[in-house]
């Protein structure tokens, strides 16, 4: 278990809130009354099997998915009442494949959100963000995304998510496309970066080792619902459902994470 900060007090301000959120894609129910609360400054990992609804729930918070029922709040304000474009510009986003625009240089990609926000000197913000994720700007700002390795691409995507200095970042399997070696290496750096930036993070992952290392709390999802959200120790000690123990055993073994 890593040395991350202890969980915040229960009365810390909720940055992300979902109450009874349900959504279906055609006939397929993706969310069936999901509840979630992510507090200021914490890193919460959504874990669960494929199809459990974790990505759908994440995409509800930046209004990429409009759920049919339930209430969603970001920083206390209902998502339904927010301008989706302004909402999205206020938070970082790191998808599995990086999602870099292939026809833009790395520097221009990273400068995207500061540019959209009309900040002065977005290039400087981009260069600073690149340095923070370990990609020296002199070397990387003018390169094309296709010339980067998988790990470098995810670092660039992370730089793009952080360039405008958001207080909130959504990450959808940010290390999922990497090989094991790159994943292990980047996982440690990602943990440090999240703590240093002091941002609130909602992280979707199917890798429980990743969740255990990066997250303050882990939310276990099954069939479109959040079964339990708590620290790993307490999920182990007091599971609300046999499935919680089953998933943890399957993902971590009975031993503690390396």
């Amino acid at each position, binding site marked *: 278990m890593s040395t991350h900060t202890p969980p915040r007090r229960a009365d810390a301000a909720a940055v992300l809130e979902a109450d009874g959120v349900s959504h279906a894609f055609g006939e397929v129910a993706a969310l069936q009354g999901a509840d979630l609360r992510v507090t200021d400054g914490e890193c919460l990992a959504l874990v669960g099997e494929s199809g459990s609804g974790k990505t759908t729930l994440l995409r509800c918070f930046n209004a990429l998915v409009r759920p049919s029922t339930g209430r969603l709040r970001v920083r206390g304000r209902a998502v339904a009442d927010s301008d989706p*474009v302004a909402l999205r510009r206020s938070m970082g986003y790191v998808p599995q494949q*990086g999602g870099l625009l292939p026809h833009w240089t790395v520097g221009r990609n990273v400068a995207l959100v500061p540019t*959209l926000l009309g900040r002065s000197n977005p290039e400087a913000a981009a260069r600073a963000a690149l340095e923070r994720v370990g990609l020296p700007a002199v070397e990387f700002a003018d390169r094309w995304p296709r010339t980067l390795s998988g790990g470098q691409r995810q670092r660039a995507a992370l730089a793009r998510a952080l360039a405008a200095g958001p207080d909130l970042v959504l990450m959808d399997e940010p290390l999922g496309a990497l090989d094991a070696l790159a994943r292990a290496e980047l996982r440690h750096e990602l943990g440090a970066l999240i703590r240093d930036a002091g941002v609130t993070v909602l992280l979707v992952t199917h890798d429980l080792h990743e969740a255990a290392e990066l997250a303050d709390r882990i939310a276990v999802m099954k069939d479109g619902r959040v079964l339990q959200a708590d620290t790993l120790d307490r999920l182990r000690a007091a599971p609300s459902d046999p499935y919680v123990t089953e998933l943890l055993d399957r993902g971590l073994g009975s031993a503690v994470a390396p």
Partner: protein
Amino acid sequence: MTAGASLRSRGAALVLLLSTVFGPATSLTGQEVSGSVPTEPIVVASKPFAESFLLAELFAQRLEAVGIPVDRRPGLGATDLAFRALRTGAIDVYPEYTGTGLVAILGLEPEGDAADVYGIVSTRFMERYGVRWMPPLGFENSYAIAVRPETADSLNLRTLSDLAAAAPDLVAGFSPDFIGRPDGLPGLAATYDLRFEETRPLLQSVKYPAIAEGAVDVIDGYTTDGGLDRYGLVVLDDDADFFPPYEAAALLRPGLAAARPDVVAALAPLSGRLDAATMRRANRRIEVDGQEPAVVAAELLAGLSLGAPGATTATPSPDVADTGLAEFIWSRRGETARQTLRHLWLVAIALGAATLLAVPLGVTLARRPTVAEPVVRATGVLQTIPSIALLAFMIPLFGIGVGPAVIALFLYAVFPILRNTWSGVRDADPDAVDAARALGMTDGQILLRVRLPLAAPVVMAGVRVSAVIAVGTATLAAFIGAGGLGDPIVAGLALSDERLIISGALPAALLALVVDAGLSLVESAVRPRGLSED
């Protein structure tokens, strides 16, 4: 020079350029721009075979001999295209055959007597279409079903009834026109109970070489064809009198006789003056000896004392058949350049208009998946209409000439561009599009800055496909009198002149290569630098 004057002179220059390219007095719809009646040229057309070329040239030179200006449109599609053009007033005169009028156009049963047939068609055409038949020129040109002499000897064939018995072992090569029309194969097969082992559609110009080399055993020709003599073929006797008499005559568009009595007066002296032997000799000079129809027509007119008072306008070139291919093509370089320019214009206008329509439409459809499939499929159906059929549909709507040709090329060009724009925009890197949206790009920004740049190479690939198709299809535009590099191809096919065909086909192929190479440079230029080059 003021800005306004400069604009005006530039406009004038454009009009001048367009009119040199498309020929004077031709509007975009191909209709003649009306001028004062006496000087308006008479549009003389023909069908795409040698005798029709010759007769049209004969009419044209006869009109010019009495001072009537003429606009020549030789080689219009076939019976259906030419008659449609005449009926709708897109052309004024073309040579037709009474039997063809009776059976193929009026859809009546064949009649045996030539005078009866002329009586029927002249009355019925006037009643039904307002079209006037001039009195026949004096010779009949019927269908001739012919075989090689060896075939006739070994199978003992003398008549079409003999042929019916041997047909199941023979391969027929008939012109597409003959295969389709009721006075052609369908009626013939019914009358004689003919069943061939196989029936192949063959163009007029390849039928004779094909039968001479044994690729087919039976062909349809015309009794006045030079090729029958040249290859020594045996014409089988129509012992059941199936074919009606086919007397050649000038056909005049509705209203022409009343509006232009001078035209009627000029053509009338040709009636009854040409016999079959004269025509067979004349056709042979064109088809076998490679002489120009204009030269042969001028000599025929001079022989009848109906030519221009002075010397013949066409320069006779007796050694034309002996010049080599390269020399021949070089001698036509001016004409070829003009036709290439016109060809390029036809393609450029059609392609430009198709791009202006298809790119915005494709972008719109990419955001409306429910209507996109039906719309794209509908334009795809257009692609399956055979070019000649599409050109034929254009005639009643737009006449003949450049206008309908450009519209047809435009319709063909839309689909590849539309399909590629639609799929290119829709399928643009989904991860990049998703990230762009999640980071706060608006729909408009995503379209203009992400989807369109990523789709640009795909869109250009569609434009390239359309351009190459258009360069190829534009050669067929000659069938409706639009000019371009199809002119020498159509004339060459009709006159069995391979050098003429090559003098059109070679530049057309080169043009396709050059256009494709040029557009591939554009494609590279619009390809975003971040995308891989392969």
